[in-house]
C-alpha cells in the first residue's frame, strides 16, 4: 500500500470537515467502546487473562527462532509448505509463484492486513490473476478501490447509502436500501466465486507452534469457505504471530474477540493443519504458509519489542480520541490509530511518518484497553526521541526542548522563571483571563483561547500550604 503518512495533517483536517465521516465515526465509537466494556465486565477473570496474554506473547518473542523452527517442522510434517519472505515484495512474488505453479486463475481472499502490507492484490492482478475479496467490508473496498480505514471493521467510514449506490452500479441490480438485502446480495454475488476459485488466500490470527496450525477468527464464514473449497490454500502471516500451544491459543481466544468487538467468541474459530487427509472428501490438496518478516525482526531486542505482542484487535484505535475524530485514512498506511502510529514509522521509515507518533493526546486509553498491555504511549515517546535524535524535528522545537531541559535541571532557575511566566501570562490574560494569542504558538490558539494562569505557580501554592 502506498504510504501517504507525510500528508497526515492535511488529511486529518479534511477528515474533521467531512460530515459524513464524522457521523460514521460517532456511530463506531459508542458501538465498539460499549460492547467491549460490557464484555469485559461480564468476565471477572479478564485482568488475569491479560497478564497471561502478555506472558504468552513475551515467551514467544524471547525464543522466536525456536518457536518458528518448531512451527515449520510440524507444519511441513502435516503436508504444508512453508515459505519465508524478508520483504512485502518478496511475499507477493512467492504467492504469485505458488499461483503459477498450481495453474491458478481465480483466487478468493479472506481479510488479511498483512496482504494489505504487501499490496498483494495489485501484484497478483498484474500477473493476470483474478482476485476476489470475500470479507464483506473488504469486498466493498475492492469495488470502491479504497484502502481499509480500520483493521477489524475496514469499511466503517462508509454509510449504507454509499454502499447501496456502489452495489447498484457494480452489480447492475436494482438498488437495495436495507442492510440485510445488501448483505444477501453480496452473498449471492460471491458464492459462485467461492465454488469455482482455484486458490484461497487467508491471513492468520495465530500460528500454533505445537501443531503447525493456522488459526483464524472470523464471523462471516468466508474464512472457512476460502480455506475449505479451493484446491490450494495460502496463508500469509507475520513471523511474530506464533503462539506456543493450543492452551495459549485458548487464552488469547478469550482476549481477542472481546477486545475487538465485545464478542465472547467469534462465530467461527478455525484451526487449519496441513492438507486434505488421505480419506478426506473435502479440504484443500495443497497448503502453503508464507512467513513474512518485513521489518519485524528489527524490533526484537529493542525498546520497541513490546509492539510485536500485538494481536491486531483494534481496541487501541476504538478508544483513541484522535482516531475517533479523524478515522483511519489520515494515518496513511495499513495500520491506523495508536498501534499504527507506532508500526507505520517502523515499517515505512521514521522520516515518512513524522506526524504519527505526535498525533496523540497521551491520554493512555490505548494502554488501558490493550489486551496484551503494550505500552503504546511509551513507544510513541521513544519514536519522538528518535525523531529528535535524527534531526527530524524543527529547529524551533529542538531549541525549546533544549532550553526546557536546561531549565528543568536547575530548580532555582525553574522556580524563578515559572513565577515570572505565570505572572506575565496572568497579566496578558487581563480581566477575561483568556489568552487569545501566544507569540510563536499560533497553532495552539488558532481554534481556541488558552485559559490564563491564576497568578501563582504550583510550587508557591504548595509551599504556602505546608506553612499553614
Amino acid at each position, binding site marked *: 500500500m502506498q504510504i501517504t503518512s507525510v500528508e497526515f495533517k492535511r488529511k486529518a483536517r479534511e477528515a474533521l470537515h467531512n460530515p459524513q465521516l464524522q457521523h460514521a465515526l460517532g456511530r463506531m465509537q459508542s458501538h465498539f467502546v460499549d460492547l467491549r466494556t460490557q464484555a469485559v465486565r461480564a468476565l471477572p477473570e479478564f485482568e488475569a487473562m491479560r497478564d497471561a496474554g502478555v506472558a504468552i506473547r513475551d515467551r514467544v518473542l524471547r525464543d522466536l527462532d525456536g518457536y518458528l523452527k518448531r512451527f515449520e517442522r510440524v507444519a511441513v510434517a502435516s503436508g504444508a509448505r512453508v515459505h519465508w519472505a524478508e520483504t512485502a515484495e518478496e511475499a507477493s512474488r512467492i504467492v504469485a509463484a505458488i499461483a503459477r505453479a498450481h495453474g491458478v486463475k481465480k483466487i478468493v481472499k479472506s481479510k488479511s492486513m498483512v496482504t494489505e502490507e504487501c499490496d498483494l492484490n495489485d501484484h497478483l492482478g498484474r500477473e493476470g490473476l483474478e482476485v476476489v475479496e470475500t470479507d464483506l467490508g473488504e469486498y466493498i473496498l475492492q469495488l470502491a478501490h479504497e484502502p481499509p480505514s480500520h483493521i477489524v471493521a475496514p469499511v466503517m467510514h462508509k454509510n449504507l447509502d454509499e454502499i447501496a449506490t456502489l452495489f447498484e452500479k457494480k452489480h447492475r441490480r436494482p438498488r437495495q436500501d436495507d442492510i440485510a438485502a445488501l448483505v444477501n446480495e453480496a*452473498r449471492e454475488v460471491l458464492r459462485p466465486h467461492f465454488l469455482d476459485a482455484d486458490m484461497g488466500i487467508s491471513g492468520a490470527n495465530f500460528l500454533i507452534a505445537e501443531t503447525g496450525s493456522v488459526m483464524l477468527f472470523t464471523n462471516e464464514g*468466508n474464512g*472457512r469457505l476460502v480455506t475449505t473449497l479451493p484446491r490450494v490454500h495460502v496463508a500469509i502471516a507475520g513471523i511474530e504471530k506464533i503462539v506456543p500451544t493450543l492452551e495459549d491459543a485458548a487464552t488469547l481466544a478469550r482476549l481477542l474477540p472481546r477486545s475487538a*468487538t465485545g464478542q465472547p467468541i467469534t462465530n*467461527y474459530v478455525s484451526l487449519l493443519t496441513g492438507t486434505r*487427509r488421505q480419506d478426506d472428501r473435502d479440504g484443500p490438496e495443497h497448503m502453503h504458509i508464507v512467513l513474512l518478516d518485513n521489518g519485524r525482526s528489527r524490533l526484537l531486542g529493542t525498546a520497541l519489542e513490546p509492539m510485536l505482542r500485538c494481536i491486531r484487535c483494534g481496541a487501541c484505535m476504538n478508544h483513541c480520541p484522535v482516531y475517533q475524530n479523524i478515522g483511519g485514512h489520515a494515518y496513511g498506511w495499513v495500520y491506523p490509530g495508536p498501534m499504527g502510529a507506532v508500526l507505520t514509522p517502523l515499517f515505512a521509515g521514521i522520516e515518512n511518518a513524522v506526524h504519527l507518533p505526535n498525533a496523540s493526546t497521551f491520554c493512555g486509553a490505548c494502554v488501558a484497553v490493550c489486551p496484551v498491555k503494550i505500552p503504546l504511549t511509551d513507544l510513541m515517546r521513544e519514536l519522538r526521541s528518535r525523531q529528535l535524535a535524527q534531526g527530524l524535528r524543527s529547529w524551533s522545537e529542538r531549541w525549546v526542548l533544549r532550553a526546557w531541559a536546561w531549565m528543568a535541571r536547575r530548580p532555582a532557575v525553574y522556580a524563578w522563571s515559572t513565577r515570572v511566566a505565570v505572572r506575565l501570562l496572568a497579566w496578558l490574560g487581563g480581566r477575561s483571563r483568556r489568552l487569545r494569542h501566544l507569540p510563536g504558538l499560533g497553532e495552539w490558539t488558532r481554534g481556541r483561547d488558552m485559559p490564563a494562569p491564576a497568578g501563582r505557580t504550583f510550587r508557591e501554592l504548595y509551599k504556602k500550604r505546608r506553612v499553614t
Partner: protein
Amino acid sequence: MSARERILERVVAARAGAGDPSTVEKYLQQHPRGPAPSLGPDLAQQFCERATQLASEVVRVVAISDVPIAVARYLESNKLSRRAVCWPELVALPWHAQHLEVEACIATGNDLVGITGAFAGIAETGTLMLLSGANTPATVSLLPETHIAVVQVGCIVATMEDVWARMRAQWGAIPRAVNFVSGPSRTADVEQTVTLGAHGPRRALIVLVGD
C-alpha cells in the same frame, strides 16, 4: 543465504543470548493452562443459554431416535426444505418416518440443509467443536443455509482447554480442520449493524441429546 536463514539469523542476533531454545520443547510438552472463567455446575444448561444468546436455536431430546422429530418440527416451522445432507454417523436415524430425505455425503452449493454431529460442545461460550475427517466432512456445516448439529450431553465440556485435552486423548494426531462454530454466520461490516447469514449458514439448530 536464503531468506529463511537471514530472518532466523536476525532473530537470534536480537535475542543476544537472552532466550533458551531448550525451553521451547519443554514448554510445549507441559502446555500449561491459563486462567479459566468460573462456570456453574450444570454445563449443559449453560451451553444451551450461551448458544441461544449467539442466535442458535436449541432443543433438547431424550434419545437419539427422537432427533428426526425435532428436526422435522424445526424445518416445518421455518418452512424449510425437507431434504438434507448429513454425516454418515447420522444417516441411519429414522428420518423417513418424519418424511425427511437425508443423504450421507459432502455438501455442495445446492444443498439447503446440513446435519452434523459434533466432537464437543463448550459451555463457556455455547460453541460447537467440529473435527474434519472422512466421515465428518467440513462442508456439511458450511455450505447449506441451515446447519443442524446433533450433540450428546456427555460431549459438553466447560472450556476450550477441556476440548483440547479430549482431542489429544482421542485423536492423537490433529485433524485437518478444527472448526469452532458459535451460531449462524454474521457480519456487522455495514454501519456496525449485525446481520445474520453472511457467507455461511443463515440459521442454526442444536439438538442436544440426553438428560
